């Protein structure tokens, strides 16, 4: 009668007693918390940030143009003035050529997405120098069956 609950009660009591004993045994410092002074000192083993060293690969007088480009990039990370220079770099292809290319490009890629009917129409147009608009219109429009 009431043995299980008694057991749980005694267990609880025992646990509480144990906790008390354990917490008394824990050592703790009465000293006030020391502020962490070391957060301001960072140990760094590399020399790179100390002396602001440049990038290790260098090329002079156009011996290796890729590396010369890299040099400008790398060294501009420290000096941001040079970033503007990069925008003015000579392009391989001039602007005019790009415009011309784009004109033709739009046409060729546009053809890809045309439906079959329109593709055939385009072909016919290309074949006939003088494009006849009548046959193309006729094909597109619906012809009423004549009675």
């Amino acid at each position, binding site marked *: 009668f009431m043995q299980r609950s008694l057991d749980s009660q005694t267990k609880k009591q025992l646990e509480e007693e144990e906790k008390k004993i354990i917490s008394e045994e824990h050592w703790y410092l009465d000293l006030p918390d020391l502020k962490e002074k070391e957060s301001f000192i960072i140990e760094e083993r590399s*020399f790179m*940030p*100390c*002396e602001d060293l440049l990038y290790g*690969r*260098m090329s*002079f*007088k156009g011996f290796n143009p890729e590396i010369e480009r890299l040099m400008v990039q790398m060294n501009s990370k420290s000096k941001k003035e040079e970033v503007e220079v990069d925008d003015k770099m000579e392009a391989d292809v001039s602007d005019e050529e790009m415009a011309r290319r784009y004109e033709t490009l739009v046409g060729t890629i546009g053809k890809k997405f045309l439906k079959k009917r329109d593709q055939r129409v385009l072909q016919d147009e290309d074949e006939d120098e003088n494009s006849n608009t009548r046959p193309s219109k006729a094909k597109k429009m619906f012809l009423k069956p004549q009675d």
Partner: protein
Amino acid sequence: VTKCGLLRHRPAGGGGGAFWVDSQQKRYVPVKGDHVIGIVTAKTGDLFKVDVGGSELASLSYLAFEGATKRNRPNVQVGDLIYGQFLVANKDMEPELVCIDSSGRASGMGVIGQDGFLFKVTLGLIRKLLAPKCEIIEELSQLYPFELVLGMNGRIWVKAKTVQQTLIIVNILEACEYMTAEQRKQALAKVSGN
């Protein structure tokens, strides 16, 4: 660890101020993030063993190159020169090299091309040469076109159009450690006169 040398100080610039000991030594200790020139000594499975002049051979994974996949292996042979940076470098572990930076681009790292001359100098000279405005480098660049790779481990690789020019540059770089500015200018004048 004790080091002898000059204590240098940089007052607070972008970050806080910095103190460091400016000493002279020939032996390199691998440091994380340093760019070095290494020589491939062995090729074991997926890994290359690279000699960087430290106490241990550094390891370089074949995937640590730009555009390298398991099928697309980089073209690295034993005896090649590699310019890379340390991913891991502490005294408890074997150092690891990578030829790719944090954004995944090569940015100049990787196998260094054919020809050219590799030689060793002290670490102090390398730091002098890599300083933002180095007179030695500026004066040399006026002579003739050449290419230069400086590794923080004391190794320099030079390539010019002819063997003679390469050797001249090598000699000047080796000697300018102990020459004063005037002696150097004299030497360069002699060379450019030839």
